[in-house]
């Protein structure tokens, strides 16, 4: 193992780098070294018969570098010296890497973290909120789609439940990527946790990137105004943003899928009490028990409509946003009447 010794020696002497000689083009001759001397840049030089020590040192350094670069392999396996407390460090590394994967997707979705969060989400999904997911067959399986959902509550339980429901109940285990509003996305802990579960900050660039890769994107166009809704009448939806999701659909050609997320109004309580619970639930940050219904409607394809002017686009966007909103309201009403 003379090679490994030399490597050790070279590492100890502080070699800059092991590098692949053939690739870096180091195998050429270096004999014309004198030509690289600085061409008299420091004023008048006194002629000397002695060789220039600086230039010689540089030649020597370059020679040393080239010899070393041919000796050491690209991955110096042998130069690794055991650190003191290596076992402790290794243990720490295992601990630090628990529930996180070495590969996250472009937007930071962490498969190991999702796996770890699954039991908790499942408990919430099946036993606390008792969610019934309908219309899974309406989800397009080829290419992207924009799921337009209504919003419930303070924390994005609706988004996580939709994500979890589609991932577990759909035969293809599709991933839904909800778009988070800024205020949530930049929150400490919450923003990072949701990002690891698959949420993405809401902006046109991110959504376009997701749709180009054929993801299902869930938008909640009501935004924070959803908190103003009366708990007893979930069908009174707020304004659907500025219709940015329609513009996104027009630009990418992705279909719009209306989704109604209906929390059942509590029946055993008078309305006033339900209102009070709703008001305090904002502070409690935990959802009142279900059952919920999530209903996925028929996709609306806008790819045939291509607005040519700004006027046409504005008219189309306003119309389509309102139409989708009415569709979601109709779905909520239908789901409320069919079960009560």
């Amino acid at each position, binding site marked *: 193992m003379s090679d490994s010794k030399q490597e050790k020696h070279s590492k100890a002497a502080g070699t800059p780098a*092991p590098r692949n000689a053939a690739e870096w083009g180091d195998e050429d001759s270096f004999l014309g070294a004198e030509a690289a001397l600085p061409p008299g840049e420091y004023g008048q030089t006194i002629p000397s018969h002695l060789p220039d020590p600086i230039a010689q040192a540089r030649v020597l350094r370059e020679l040393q570098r080239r010899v070393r670069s041919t000796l050491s392999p690209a991955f110096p396996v042998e130069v690794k010296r055991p650190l003191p407390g290596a076992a402790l460090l290794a243990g720490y*590394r295992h601990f630090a890497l628990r529930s*996180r994967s*070495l590969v996250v997707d472009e937007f930071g979705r962490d498969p190991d973290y999702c796996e770890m969060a699954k039991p908790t989400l499942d408990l919430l999904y099946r036993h606390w909120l008792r969610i019934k997911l309908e219309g899974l067959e309406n989800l397009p399986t080829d290419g992207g789609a924009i799921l337009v959902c209504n919003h419930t509550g303070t924390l994005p339980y609706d988004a996580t439940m939709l994500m979890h429901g589609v991932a577990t109940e759909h035969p293809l285990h599709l991933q839904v990527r909800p778009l988070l509003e800024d205020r949530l996305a930049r929150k*400490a802990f919450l923003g990072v946790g949701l990002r690891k579960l698959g949420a993405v900050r809401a902006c046109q660039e991110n959504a376009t990137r997701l749709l180009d890769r054929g993801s299902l994107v869930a938008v909640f166009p009501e935004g924070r105004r959803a908190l103003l809704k009366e708990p007893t009448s979930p069908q009174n939806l707020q304004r659907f943003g500025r219709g940015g999701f329609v513009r996104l659909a027009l630009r990418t050609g992705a279909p719009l899928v209306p989704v109604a997320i209906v929390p059942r109004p509590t029946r055993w309580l008078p309305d006033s009490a339900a209102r009070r619970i709703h008001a305090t639930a904002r502070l409690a940050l935990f959802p009142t028990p279900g059952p919920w219904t999530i209903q996925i409607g028929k996709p609306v394809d806008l790819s045939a409509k291509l607005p040519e002017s700004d006027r046409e686009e504005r008219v189309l966007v306003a119309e389509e946003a309102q139409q989708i909103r009415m569709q979601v309201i109709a779905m909520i009403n239908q789901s409320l009447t069919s079960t009560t």
Partner: protein
Amino acid sequence: MSDAPKPAPAVVALTGACTDLGVETLRRLSDDPTIETLIALDVSAPDVISDKVKFVHLDLSQPGAGMRIADVLEEYKPDTFVHAAFLSAPTHDGAWAHELEDVGTMHVLDACARQQPQRLVLFSTTLVYGAKPDQPAYLREDAKLGGVTESRFINDRIRAEEQVLRFARNHPNIDVCSLRFAKLLGPNSDNLFTRFLSRPVAPTLTGFDPLMQCVHEDDAIRAILLAIRKSARGAFNIVGKDVLPYTTLLALLGRLPLPLPKGFAKFIGKAMWATKLSEVPSTMIDHLQYSCVADATRARETLGFEAKYDIRQTLAEFLGMPMEPEMHSPKPATRTATWMN
């Protein structure tokens, strides 16, 4: 792109010849048979032995530097000018850094305006975008150069970028391109990030875990050579494959994360920078809170640059450690991470 194809670069001038990237660029270019002369401009001679390399002493922070470059350009008539004279890490001597980076770029551009080389390449960094909460996840080259308001280190780079942008607009006959490198890591690199990541303990901000992106120095050099040969125009993000959360990066490197609240971390950072205990000013703390990830699409489509190393391989190379086979082709979900030891 220009109308008529320009001749291949034959005489290349390079400022900052002693920087990590500058030396490697000179080495690779001196192996290219089509290159006739390389003019290395710096305060000391680079460690490159080749007949082609002509060293010229130049201190960009001196007032007469512009005339000096003009003289050199007059003498050698280079067709390509590479401006790489930027600091690899912030310094306490802000006035000098300003002279070198911001005013130095002005000197270079003055000389280029006089002598009109065919192409001009600027080395920049993705730090110029800044880490803001309201940015898209992938920053394209046309994104606003937000930077960090109070960081002189980054503001000087932004001003250099802006000057070069203005120069490109006023001189359409010159192919001006700026290469914005992500965090440069590798076995040879020595810069802000390598120093930050070499410490056993690294601060994190409680509740935040931004996505990090880096680029291997070898990929960076390949991008530089491509930009010189292809006469590219405009800005390009030169980034490696894949992103990783900051804490995962620390775990892979075996560093101990020290979670601190932001205000406290800023205070400590300021104190440590003032007492020279830390080499990173506290103004960079935004990069521990929000992601600053750049999009590589333009470099791939226009420059034909495809990064060879992904972030895990880059980190392994930075550590000088071998990689386990699974690291080369990682599975989507690796439950247990057996990385080193």
